[in-house]
């Protein structure tokens, strides 16, 4: 079977075979081919078969993926090619038979895949270890991460500043709102800010808020420094240190 050999000082450090599923390469331990070096991104590149050819794809890595010294985003690999990632070299052995293509082979290879299944104990243990490692890295990131904060610039509210600690935040007159608006004729729920996997999204409530002067047309991801206006209140969305 075709394989990749991670080399360091001309010695093979690790070998993985390239089968029907992609081989992932990166610094994070959940990769099929982990490369422990700071110049390597967490999920740096992947190698897989497509239409019978072995392909390497850079996963938007910081320092790039090189094939025989040429920086590539995506390239077909040949027997004897070298992939360079950080200080490491990965030798390509494409001499074996190409695996059954992912698409046509999947039904035969995994006959019960449309039945819901749970990974077996060993796979699960690996996943749990990865999840634990991810949890740690996220905690680590958390210490450096900035705190999402709303700062009131104009308008009457119960506080001058709010740290967004909950996944769901409501701006309105309601007693249950996080950002409580004061005054007559304010809506119970003027707008909402919800945390999704990739950030904080501002959405309409009874009013359509504006961001940097433009009314939003649907949930909009907030960026550091965005100016929000709703129901006569102006707020600044900030990631605080």
């Amino acid at each position: 079977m075709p394989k990749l050999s991670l080399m360091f000082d001309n010695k093979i450090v690790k070998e993985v075979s390239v089968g029907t599923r992609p081989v992932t390469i990166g610094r994070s331990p959940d990769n099929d081919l982990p490369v422990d070096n700071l110049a390597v991104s967490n999920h740096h590149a992947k190698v897989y078969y497509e239409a019978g050819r072995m392909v390497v794809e850079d996963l938007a890595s910081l320092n790039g993926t090189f094939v025989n010294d040429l920086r590539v985003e995506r390239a077909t690999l040949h027997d004897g090619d070298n992939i360079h990632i950080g200080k490491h070299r990965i030798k390509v052995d494409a001499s074996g038979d190409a695996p059954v293509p992912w698409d046509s082979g999947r039904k035969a290879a995994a006959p019960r895949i449309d039945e819901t299944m749970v990974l077996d104990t060993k796979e699960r243990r690996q996943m749990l270890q990865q999840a634990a490692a991810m949890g740690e890295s996220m905690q680590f990131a958390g210490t450096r991460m900035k705190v999402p904060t709303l700062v009131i610039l104009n308008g009457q509210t119960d506080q001058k500043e709010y740290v967004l600690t909950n996944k769901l935040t409501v701006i309105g007159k309601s007693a249950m709102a996080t950002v409580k608006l004061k005054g007559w004729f304010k809506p119970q729920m003027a707008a909402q800010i919800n945390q999704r996997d990739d950030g904080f999204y501002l959405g309409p409530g009874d009013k359509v808020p504006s961001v940097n002067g433009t009314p939003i047309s649907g949930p909009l991801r907030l960026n550091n420094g965005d100016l929000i206006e709703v129901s006569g209140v102006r707020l600044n969305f900030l990631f605080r240190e």
Partner: protein
Amino acid sequence: MRIASGGVTDVGRVRTNNEDCFKIVEPLNLFVLSDGMGGEAHGEIASAMAVETVVKHCLDMEANPAAQVIGPTQPNWSARTKRLSTAVHLANRKIFKSAEENPDQHGMGATLTAVWIEGAKLSIAHVGDSRAYLLRGGSLLQLTRDHSLVAEQVRRGILTAAEAEESDMQSVLLRALGAQAEIEVDAEEHTLFPRDALLLCSDGLTRVVTEPEIAGTLQAETNPGKAAEKLAALANERGGPDNITVVIARIEKDSNGWFSWLRRGARKNPGSNGSVGGN
């Protein structure tokens, strides 16, 4: 706050048995949904066992409030959130034990997504790839995280959302009830507002119906039972590749509002109680 609710479960167009199961316990405002897996009829056994165990433990709260809390909890959690989370741990133990004692049930498991509403407080407990959504002010937000391999890969940037939808690994779960002696349960609390709508569903809906379609249906059809039926019908139009279960709860203003009588018509509960797969 008043709650109007309804739900539906449908075998779909491909499968011959329905391994989904749900229960609405109106007096408690408790909504429980489970999607079972396993050969023969064991998926049905697992999901029914999951729903039954969770409902029973929650119903028992008044009579036996001091029952032991299982699993990690947050100090600010309400007694209900602790109870609900514990109930899911108990369901896991029960399914795991049953599969251990009956070798033919080996590999059986179930997802579980449950919401429990008390006043404006919402408690959620969740394991697997069924989902809970909140529709608020026209925006649909998934409150739960799928415990599936592809969802995990998307969160880590290994797959894009589009690649995940195309993946044939969608059915691979990282967590399910019955797979291990002890599991991790996701539990959370949120504050609800009038006019919020909650939707629980099995993956038979979300595999073929998009989130904008779910949001649109919830906005166009305010009767929870009818909206659930419409969504299940839409999934069937798309081929109904899996069992489909949809449970909807709508939060309405208190009845002491001066116009509350206008809303009374929407409070009926068609199909408010459904349970498939043995009891």
